């Protein structure tokens, strides 16, 4: 028992490093973006706060046995948190727009080509193939998918990758319009489309999540946790007989998990893990993935324009991504810039819903393909 040690207790301020300072600022910026700019505040606030806590010297809450460490072990390492979140997301998601307009499904594939373009570019920049896969998956624009895949393929990069995903997600309305305009001609943008929605029975709505689970799990068994959880949540929703459970999934489970997930991700934002050249590359590659996704969608839209003899408006292609319903609304708005009477929204919603599904399948496929190596 040595009273002299007591004075050492107050040495924490002397142990702050410049890396910590940088990360404290980074954490503050995330909180700022969440609150002032409304960029995914449900995640950026907890992530930012977790980043603050992990970058204070000797901080008891952030260590291996601190709350954040325990949450990380319980929820991220076991992958429970992203999967629980997916159960909640599934219970929130209405696949109706896709079911009513199934022709839009392929756009959900085209809107994720950026993943693979980014994967290739990342390899060229020197990342190994697993890291490159994780970085590419930022292009799913889907938080839980990104966390699930990155924590399996390159856990040491989890922090920058998930921060990139969540930060860019809100930028979709800013990134999307210039890409749409750059890649389309005015004539293409003016294409009007008739909308004939297919009535969807309750049976179809109920069978859809079951069938998708079966198919995707058979195609890519490694991806089953992602698709199965989102579809399970959706089954609870569509069954119509277990509203108590569907509500528990989309409220209690989703909210509580979001808090814990954000804090644990934030706690991985140590200076060592973050302040590296790779982080800059990751941020740039993430942006590249976003851009290429939308470009892929628009280009596929142009292909459909050609194939259908000019009956498909390529703007809709850019909605084949996961950012729902933001991305569909941008399509509607840009379409109306050129023709105020042009109503692309319902088509874009179909593509956007396909994009939600495509993002999970694409992320799962990358994981599956790289697990085979």
């Amino acid at each position: 028992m040595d009273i002299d040690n007591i004075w050492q207790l107050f040495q924490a301020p002397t142990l702050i490093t410049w890396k910590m300072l940088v990360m404290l600022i980074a954490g503050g910026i995330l909180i700022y973006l969440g609150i002032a700019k409304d960029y995914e505040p449900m995640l950026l606030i907890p992530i930012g706060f977790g980043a603050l806590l992990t970058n204070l010297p000797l901080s008891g809450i952030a260590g291996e046995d601190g709350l954040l460490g325990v949450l990380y072990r319980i929820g991220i390492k076991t992958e429970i948190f992203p999967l629980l979140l997916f159960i909640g997301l599934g219970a929130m998601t209405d696949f109706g727009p896709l079911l009513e307009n199934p022709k839009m499904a392929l756009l959900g594939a085209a809107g994720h080509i950026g993943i693979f373009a980014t994967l290739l570019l990342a390899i060229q920049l020197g990342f190994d193939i697993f890291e490159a896969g994780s970085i590419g998956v930022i292009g799913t624009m889907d938080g839980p998918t990104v966390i699930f895949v990155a924590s399996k393929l390159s856990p040491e990069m989890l922090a920058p990758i998930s921060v990139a995903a969540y930060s860019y997600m809100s930028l979709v309305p800013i990134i999307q319009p210039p890409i749409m305009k750059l890649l389309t001609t005015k004539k293409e943008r003016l294409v009007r489309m008739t909308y004939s929605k297919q009535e969807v029975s309750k049976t179809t709505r109920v069978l859809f999540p079951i069938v998708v689970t079966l198919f995707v799990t058979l195609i890519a068994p490694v991806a089953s946790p992602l698709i199965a959880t989102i579809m399970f949540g959706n089954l609870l929703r569509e069954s119509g007989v277990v509203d108590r459970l569907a509500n528990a999934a989309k409220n209690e489970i989703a909210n509580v998990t979001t808090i814990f997930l954000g804090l644990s991700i934030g706690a991985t934002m140590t200076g060592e893990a973050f302040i590296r050249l790779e982080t800059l590359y990751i941020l740039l590659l993430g942006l590249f993935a976003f851009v290429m996704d939308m470009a892929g969608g628009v280009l596929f839209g142009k292909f459909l324009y050609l194939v259908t003899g000019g009956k498909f408006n390529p703007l809709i292609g850019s909605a084949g991504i996961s950012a729902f319903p933001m991305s569909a609304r941008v399509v509607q708005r840009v379409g109306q810039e050129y023709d105020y009477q042009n109503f692309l929204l319902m088509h874009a919603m179909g593509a956007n819903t396909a994009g939600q599904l495509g993002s999970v399948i694409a992320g799962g496929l990358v994981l599956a393909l790289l697990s085979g190596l």
Partner: protein
Amino acid sequence: MDEFSIGITISVLGIGVLFAALGLLTLVILLLSRLFRPVSKDEGEEKMVQDETEGLVSASQREKRPLVAAVAVAVSHLLAEEKKKAGLGQSLHKGPGKYWDRKAK
């Protein structure tokens, strides 16, 4: 095989399977929709309110609708005579507002 070639293989394969999967989904949806055509929509909606609590609340809300309507009539009648606040009648004609349709949690 070097990493980039593997990357190419994975990308080609990934894009291929991704398009195949979503193409398959199109077919699945079309098939399901053919097999299970929708019945009358009202019936479907009614079935969805089977949770007991929800049912009770909606029932009580439904009960209140005549009351609300009555109040609206009464008030607009009074105000029409008094002509104190000209703009108010409009909001009444819109009906009792979203609140009454809100799902109780």
